[in-house]
């Protein structure tokens, strides 16, 4: 879409002088205001803007919290309590940051599943999608390291279990584990480096977000019917149409966010994390935060050896594979129809995939025993089958419903 020229014309000599040297205003007008956006975007498309705001919320509250937090094993736990009790407004700021992580993932998962349904990963948006996967993985790493910082029991044992994952790497496992932890066990060096990285990586995410939006602005937005923009009649300028819609969605999104922060700031956490870390006692039931549960289930589901791969390495491969596979999605789903709306068979398997993902989440919080073990294996199998078997197969055998000729036609009906 090369049609997005800005109609910016500098008024007065000063603006013209700046525009000739650094056309920042022109750039902003072109990409944040005049950018032609399909006029049929629904509310599922507002989660990109919600995520952008959430990243800002997390960075701002995080910077403030770092002014009061002490990254030392003897002081970290107390310093978080100090923030919650003594620091002016600290109770709210800390709760905003902690609940904000959960809300970030709510928006992130909706954003990803929107892309999966409407085929936003398909040509020419493959790189856009892959940058999104990179952001997803980075955000999971950041959230995990952030959860270690309060140095409670879940922090410590979560860190122990997750870093131990790397010891499954053949040959180099043990040295790699010591390199990551800076010791033989999770200890002060581990806490220090996690704090350092937890502060750094969000800015890396911000940089990748810039690339993500750049990659979005080359082909322009996908839309609910998945038909390319054909003329200027199919689009409206981003501002004020989508700035206002996004803003409204952000306000609505902030209502449950605020409810958690003000009325139930700890409801998403674990009571065990209000016990200071103790290297000698493992809590009876270690559970990661809810947003990591689906992948934790996949990690645990492989409890059997496959040839020379032992169960532990197998679990790690499966978990890493469940994320890496997302990079290949644009080439696994070969159907030329983007939107799931016009794919009757895809729709069934898609919703099954959504339910299956929720089941994976549920199972991650359950003990690994009895029926849960079997269910975990079945849902892990479906997760991979969806990408490796169902999507490639569907793109061959499915007959999609006829597509509207254009966005305008679908919005206004056949009359046009």
């Amino acid at each position: 879409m090369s049609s997005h020229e800005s109609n910016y014309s500098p008024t007065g000599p000063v603006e013209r002088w700046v525009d000739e040297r650094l056309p920042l205003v022109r750039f902003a007008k072109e990409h944040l205001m005049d950018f032609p956006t399909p006029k049929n975007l629904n509310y599922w498309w507002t989660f990109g803007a919600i995520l952008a705001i959430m990243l800002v919320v997390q960075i701002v509250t995080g910077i403030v919290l770092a002014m009061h937090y002490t990254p030392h094993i003897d002081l970290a736990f107390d310093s978080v309590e100090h923030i919650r009790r003594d620091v002016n407004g600290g109770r709210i700021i800390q709760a905003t940051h902690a609940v904000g992580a959960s809300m970030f993932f709510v928006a992130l998962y909706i954003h990803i599943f929107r892309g999966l349904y409407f085929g936003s990963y398909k040509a020419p948006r493959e790189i856009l999608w892959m940058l999104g996967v990179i952001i997803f993985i980075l955000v999971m790493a950041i959230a995990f390291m952030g959860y270690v910082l309060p140095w409670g029991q879940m922090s410590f044992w979560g860190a122990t279990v997750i870093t131990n994952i790397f010891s499954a790497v053949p040959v180099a496992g043990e040295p790699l584990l010591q390199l990551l932890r800076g010791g033989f066990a999770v200890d002060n060096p581990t806490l220090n480096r996690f704090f350092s990285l937890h502060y750094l990586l969000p800015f890396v995410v911000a940089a990748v977000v810039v690339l993500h939006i750049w990659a979005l602005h080359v082909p322009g937005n996908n839309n609910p019917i998945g038909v390319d923009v054909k003329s200027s009649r199919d689009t409206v300028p981003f501002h004020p149409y989508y700035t206002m819609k996004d803003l409204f969605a952000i306000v609505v999104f902030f209502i449950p966010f605020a409810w958690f922060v003000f009325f139930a700031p700890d409801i998403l956490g674990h009571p065990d994390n209000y016990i200071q870390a103790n290297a000698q006692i493992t809590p009876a039931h270690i559970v990661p935060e809810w947003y990591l549960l689906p992948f934790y289930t996949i990690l645990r589901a492989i409890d059997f050896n496959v040839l020379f791969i032992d169960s532990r390495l197998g679990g790690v491969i499966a978990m890493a594979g469940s994320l890496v596979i997302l990079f290949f999605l644009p080439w696994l789903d070969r159907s030329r129809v983007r939107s799931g709306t016009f794919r009757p068979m895809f729709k069934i398997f898609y919703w099954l995939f959504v339910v299956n993902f929720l089941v994976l989440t549920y199972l991650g919080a359950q003990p690994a025993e009895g029926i849960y073990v079997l269910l975990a294996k079945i849902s892990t199998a479906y997760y991979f089958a969806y990408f490796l078997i169902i999507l490639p197969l569907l793109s061959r055998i499915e007959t999609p419903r006829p597509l509207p000729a254009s966005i305008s036609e679908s919005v206004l009906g056949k009359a046009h």
Partner: protein
Amino acid sequence: MATQSDTANTHTPKASRRDFLYVATGAVGAVGVAGAVWPLINQMNPDASVLALAQVDFDVSSIAEGSSVTIIWRGLPVFVRHRTAAEIEEARAVPLSELKDPESDDQRVKEGHEQWLIMIANCTHLGCVPVGESGNYDGWFCPCHGSHYDTAGRIRQGPAPTNLVVPEYEFLSDTMVRIG
């Protein structure tokens, strides 16, 4: 202008002196960067103060038969268990063919000190501390992912790949143990 002559060079079949200089410069640059990066990675390895804690001495005489204590060695919890005769018997009675990670009871204790079982208290699956005197084999049970260990700390059931690790240690006297 330089670009023009470069492109011309790549079309000639023989590598020129200039090509060699490019590659050589690039190689030296790469080695230099790698040399600068290595200390930045190596600083993450265990430091001198961590390594300095590599040995601990411990007096086992205060542990009554049938009970155990957990001590800290290199930041890791270590079980020291005073086993009962029945536990030792039970561990010895198991045929090696039944074991996922075959090791006899003798291999896991020191000769003449068979009642003392000393092992790193982290489950070999993902590092949780198993609960003592529980599980299906009267040894340890890891609550995280359900691994069962027997009275010699050997893996019997569950996702853990190997037996609980026995650290290097020696008996300095009948009751003094040096771990590490």
